[in-house]
């Protein structure tokens, strides 16, 4: 039984990792055909960095991810503080508003934002892309900061006020340091989601502005090229490192293992 379980798990993990590993291995393949190994090469990586289209989309991807994550973190943290002190009815309304973009399908978020931007005569491009990314990022910041606020001892803020601190000063010196882990997690999550997004970007960007995902999509539709393999490998490593950091953060924030069951 134990051996069977092990074999089953191994099959599943092979299934999950085989495509990714093939992609990585073939990014070093000297032969352009996928089936044959023509020796080790780094030339696809070299070509990648010379590709204008790829470099410009890399630039936009990073700028959009950074800007949207910063705006989302500031707005989202403020929102979380506000939501935390809300009365029940208003609070449930705002929480539903927060969950709406999280649960509605990306394609609907994408086309609805596209309609909005065209409706208000905003040219599709950098601005609309940024607005769209901020929109889908903020709820995640709110949702990672709120639990930290719930853990907070509310008397600390009052104590700071009693000792003569101005509200703003008390916020930055007392509240913010306490909720900082949630804020940083929210920022990293927003940054990663923005890097990773394809569907919403696809519908809200215009000519000339393209993110890495969009470039990959247009390249992949034309067929397979080793250059995309190289790009995929690099993106995989970057996202992996980012997520390991996020994961490590939430793990050190304390979560003990529940009792395990025997099946």
């Amino acid at each position: 039984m134990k051996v069977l379980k092990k074999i089953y798990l191994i099959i599943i993990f092979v299934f999950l990792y085989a495509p990714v590993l093939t992609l990585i291995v073939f990014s070093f393949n000297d032969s352009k055909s996928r089936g044959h190994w023509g020796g080790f090469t780094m030339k696809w990586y070299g070509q990648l960095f010379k590709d204008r289209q790829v470099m410009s989309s890399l630039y936009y991807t990073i700028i959009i991810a950074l800007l949207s994550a910063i705006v989302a973190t500031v707005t989202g943290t403020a929102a979380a503080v506000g939501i935390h002190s809300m009365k029940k009815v208003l609070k449930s309304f705002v929480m539903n508003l927060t969950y709406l973009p999280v649960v509605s399908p990306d394609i609907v978020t994408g086309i609805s934002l596209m309609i909005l931007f065209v409706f208000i005569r905003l040219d599709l491009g950098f601005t609309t892309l940024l607005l769209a990314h901020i929109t889908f990022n903020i709820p995640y910041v709110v949702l990672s900061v709120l639990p930290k606020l719930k853990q907070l001892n509310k008397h600390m803020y009052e104590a700071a006020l009693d000792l003569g601190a101005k509200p703003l000063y008390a916020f930055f010196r007392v509240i913010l340091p306490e909720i900082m882990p949630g804020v940083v997690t929210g920022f990293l999550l927003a940054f990663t989601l923005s890097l990773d997004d394809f569907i919403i970007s696809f519908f809200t960007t215009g000519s000339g502005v393209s993110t890495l995902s969009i470039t990959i999509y247009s390249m992949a539709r034309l067929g397979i090229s080793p250059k995309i393999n190289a790009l995929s490998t690099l993106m995989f490593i970057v996202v992996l490192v980012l997520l390991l950091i996020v994961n490590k953060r939430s793990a050190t924030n304390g979560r003990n293992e529940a009792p395990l069951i025997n099946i």
Partner: protein
Amino acid sequence: MKKTWVSYPYILWMIIFTIVPLLLVLYYSFTKTVDGTPVLTMDNFIRVLEPTYLKVLWRSVVLALVSTVVCFIVGYPVAMILAGKDMSNKSILVLLLVVPMWMNFLLRTYAWMTLLDRKGVINSVLGALGLPQVHLLYTDFAVILGMVYNFLPFMVLPIYSVLRKIDRSLIEAAEDLGSDRITVFRKVIFPLSIPGVVSGVTMVFMPAVTTFIISKLLGGSQYMLIGNLIEDQFMRVYDWNFGSAVSIIMMLLILLSMGIMTKYDKEGAGGGLF
């Protein structure tokens, strides 16, 4: 703290960028432009009922259902094995399960193109073994495979988190009362894991029924699912009214399936993913 106002920018933002756009979709779906002026109409919804489009809808639902069932059959045992007590270093195994999920969705799908292609890895291996070539890419099989591959972790994780929380003494009690392993599973473990199954099914079915990437890359450019239909209307045909109507239908489909699923999850104990 009475600082409710600091969240007003956020509320305003969310109303402008989520509520208003959805209302616009609704508006477009019920209107049609005649001689440059929008007219109220049901035509867009009536058009969805044409056989061509009904077929697309039907195929999307069937493919999503098949993928969900496959994910369940493959994923439940994985969750059970991971939750079992004779599994050491399980947190690493769970992390290993999540890592491919965090790889860019497009890249994961693209990776299968490399494997399934006519001159791809699988056919090369078959050729080397002297076996006949198989036609895999641009088939229903490839699309279902892509869906299962992309969404399997969404099935495993909620079930795993529910299974892990089951009170061991319930299982022991059943065993003490003489149940064999199969009866324990059928009468104790499985019923208790229903909330996890419900969220797993929802989390697989929804992205599967809305996808347009998997179908385009693995099914070929002619392959039509409801997501592709919407994409086509907005990016190529520019019939936004009809595209909006299809989107509304898709949302209704999702709400309906969510409604059905939550009916099975009476306690609302849902094994959320996070």
